[in-house]
């Protein structure tokens, strides 16, 4: 593995390799050691051309715990806001000797473009490109599910996960469907027809418009944020109606299996797709997803950066 651009590029062995590495690293994070010398002398650039709290901080914490040097770079306050192209930005980073670039961009395929061209030689990690993919989020979600429900097995065979809400604008949904399917879990997408992308039939998952009929059968329910900033048309009549049909509230929560997990990639619209009561309930693993994110991103950096760059192998 040289880059992490898309879950579609991973095979089962690589995916499980990252999850297993993250498991060992999380054990270290839970203990008294918070810093490891593994990536000393390597430079990781966080190139965030779109707003982010969790992902950027998480990658920064992950890189620092492995002793890499971190350079943060956001669109606001950099030359990107003056209109510098991705190519020129990449060549600048290359000139500064970046070993890895973590890129978040509003254009789908931005990470792929950075990796395909010879603008820079470092590893490219996709931290969310438009409505395409967000592989590190999918890996941390799978990690969280495996930790709670995996019963010691390495994959997610036999589990059923519902992904609910704004699938159309969600890069998290696409990455999650691909990864969960790769790991052997059954996935059901739940959304109003207007919020499902074209070509959804080709995805390796089931689709339902009826939230209540799916809830009692799933082992984990992943709520997606309604991405109002990407909505240029009217996708549902109003927020109250959306919330009534597709929001997870306390009443719906009671129909879930007793051990079922409630997940959300954040940031949450409390009161829209998830009620505050549910988000703060004991079944919600939403803050745990954030701490698992650091371990998973450490694992990604380890796999991409720790080995030799000439002889790139996998586990």
């Amino acid at each position, binding site marked *: 593995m040289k880059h992490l651009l898309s879950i579609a590029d991973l095979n089962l062995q690589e995916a499980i390799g990252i999850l297993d590495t993250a498991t*060992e690293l999380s054990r270290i994070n839970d203990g*008294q050691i918070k810093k490891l*010398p593994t990536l000393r002398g390597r430079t990781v650039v966080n190139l965030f051309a779109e707003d982010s709290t969790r992902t950027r901080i998480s990658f920064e914490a992950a890189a620092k715990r492995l002793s890499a040097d971190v350079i943060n770079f956001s669109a606001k306050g950099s030359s990107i806001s003056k209109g510098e192209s991705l190519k020129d930005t990449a060549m600048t980073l290359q000139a500064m000797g970046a070993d890895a670039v973590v890129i978040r961009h509003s254009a789908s395929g931005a990470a792929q473009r950075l990796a395909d061209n010879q603008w820079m030689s470092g590893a490219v990690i996709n931290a969310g490109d438009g409505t395409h993919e967000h592989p590190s989020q999918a890996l941390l979600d799978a990690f969280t599910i495996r930790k709670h429900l995996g019963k010691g097995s390495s994959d997610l065979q036999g589990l059923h996960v519902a992904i609910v809400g704004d699938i159309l604008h969600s890069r998290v949904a696409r990455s999650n469907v691909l990864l969960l399917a790769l790991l052997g879990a059954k996935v059901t997408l739940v959304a109003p027809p207007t919020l499902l992308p074209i070509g959804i039939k080709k995805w390796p998952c089931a689709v339902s418009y009826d939230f209540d009929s799916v809830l009692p059968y799933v082992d984990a329910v992943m709520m997606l944020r309604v991405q109002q900033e990407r909505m240029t048309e009217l996708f549902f009549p109003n927020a109250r109606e959306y919330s009534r049909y597709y929001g997870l509230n306390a009443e719906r929560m009671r129909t879930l299996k007793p051990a079922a997990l409630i997940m959300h990639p954040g940031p949450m619209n409390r009161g829209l797709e998830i009620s505050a009561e549910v988000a703060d309930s004991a079944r919600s693993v939403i803050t745990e997803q954030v701490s698992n994110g650091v371990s998973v991103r450490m694992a990604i950096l380890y796999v991409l950066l720790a*080995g*030799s760059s000439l002889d790139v192998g*996998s586990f």
Partner: protein
Amino acid sequence: MNVVLSAEDISRALTRISHEILERNHGSTNVAILGIPTRGAHLALRVAEIMAKIEGTNIPCGTLDITLHRDDLRLRPPRAIMPTLIPQSGIEGRDVVLIDDVLFSGRTIRSALDALGEVGRPKTVQLAVLVDRGHRELPIKADFVGKNLPSSLDQSVRVSLTEIDGRDEVVIESRKQP
């Protein structure tokens, strides 16, 4: 291929090492055993078990993975990380005995000392190995050795243990010509 230690030889060597550890540390009260994965971890469990039998008390035993502290990480493809399990009682102020299967260049042990430093500050650190094959690249020496095995650099020493390989055996063989 040449078998240098049989199952019985390995068992006798581990029993002797266990006695030597107890003798050196005047009993087991302050001792903690840490095995270096993969095979060292299994050897550590065996040694702790033998010591427990002799002393009639439990011996704290764990594993210490050194992957993240290796100095050759950049020379090879990434390696899988193995578990680090520090015993409940910790290692602070203890006499820690590191256990590995083969002592060769000494680089694994250097990494282990670094990894140990992250966990705490033991009173002493001692080293027990099943086989010492020589060719040290660092000033490191084992305190307890199962068998000294003078070897040439174009030979390889292979340790098999029942827990992983289905049988106990140490063989020395000529490295296959590339």
